[in-house]
């Protein structure tokens, strides 16, 4: 799953692969903006068939947080 998310970040958002780690801050370190976050949510839903509510996603800061949200 982590690899899939990383793939999206690298391919769709053109983030340099070396920057993407499990605990990199999406907004500060990876330069994800609010619109990217929406797109990321959509991609995640396509990938996992699971829905993270936008309110929940607001607390998300790192890829690990995303994995946590997906697990619950």
């Amino acid at each position, binding site marked *: 799953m982590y690899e899939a998310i990383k793939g999206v970040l690298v391919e769709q958002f053109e983030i340099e692969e070396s920057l993407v780690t499990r605990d990199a801050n999406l907004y500060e370190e990876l330069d994800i*903006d*609010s619109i990217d976050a929406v797109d990321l949510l959509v991609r995640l839903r396509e990938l996992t068939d699971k829905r993270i509510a*936008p309110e929940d996603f607001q607390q998300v800061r790192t890829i690990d947080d995303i994995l946590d949200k997906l697990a619950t």
Partner: protein
Amino acid sequence: MLTLPAEGSPPKNRTGLPEGVVRTDESFLRRKRSSNISEPETSFLTRSLQALLCTARDSPEDSRRAIQACATVGVATARAPRATPGPTISNASRLANDAARSCARSHDSARLDGTLGRRGLVTTKAAQVNDLIEITAPPRLQWQSMGTSSQLPTQTSTGISGGTAGRLRPGSAFPGFRSWADRSWRLLGTGLSFFTFGVGGLVLGAVVFPLCRALIRKPESRQRFARRIIGGSFSAFVWMMKSLGVLSYETRGLDKLADVTGALIIANHPSLIDVVFLVSFFPQADCIIKRGVTRNPFMHGAARTANYISNSEPEEILSSCTQRLRAGSNLILFPEGTRRDQTEPIRFKMGAAAIAVRAQARIVRILIRCEPPTLRKNEAWYHIPRQRPHWTFEFPPPVPVEELTGDEQNQRRATRKLQKSLLGYYEYLRTHQK
């Protein structure tokens, strides 16, 4: 005889305020309303504030001092007789206002409050300073502000020819009474207008729109009809406020936009009633309605009948806005997301740019000015400015989005590029337009 401080190094006394500011300030306070403040005094004041500001940008300590100085000066000038002539006093007060704002924003405000010892001092004083701007600032100068405050024009002709209200009018025996009567009338008129607006909304929401939903089956004609009614009532509201003398407004270039389609209409958002104006100008355009508003049963009915976009999940807004623009309707949007003061730097949310890029829409970048500012965020309707507020709406021709993104094909990069371009455009206008 007053001595002028050298640029960049104001003389300071033990209170930390530049010597001259304190002295001038005290003499202002002593005389209060009794006599005129002399021209050299105010021009000196302006210059010492300017000098102080040059040093105030970098450290919280300097900022604190600058705010304090500006605030006291602001309060002092506020107490000065209204008949004080000349542009220098308005320059001084404008500078004080700008300074207080920019300093308070550029540094950690909690820390500033701590050093000041009393929480809220900065904001209270800044508010007082702000209030005084309405007395003295010439109307045309309101929009251009902070960015240019360090190169302040000391003698501008606008200062004299501009803001007449609140100053002594030649031939008027009771200037105080006249301005009091004028403000009271506008207070009454504003109250009456807002009351009518509320009642009108109630009638529309309780009677007209339910009828409209029951009688008109075809969704497209229902939407068109409902929007005609909303546009008409908003026009009537604007007309009412104008006829009562509560406000005045002008539009520039609106006639050229009569048959624009598929355009994203964006604007800065200085006042509460911007949207009322815009909807009355473009009655058939789509709007996004706040979620809180759609919960109100009457508003909900109106928004549903007119088929406005409800502010739900971000993903849905993006897709429905894009869809509607592509289908050829116009969409009104305030990229700031909320009202913002004209003196503050522009900040846009990404939504507008994202929608424009996704829909490959044309963009109409409206500039709204309101002078003197009124009905701002956190400002009650009964806070009536000293002069009748005047709205100016500038409508430039629509620009295709590709022109602003430089034909960038990657959606994400194009969105960011557009966002930057829009911000630059509005910030330039904000700081340069007169």
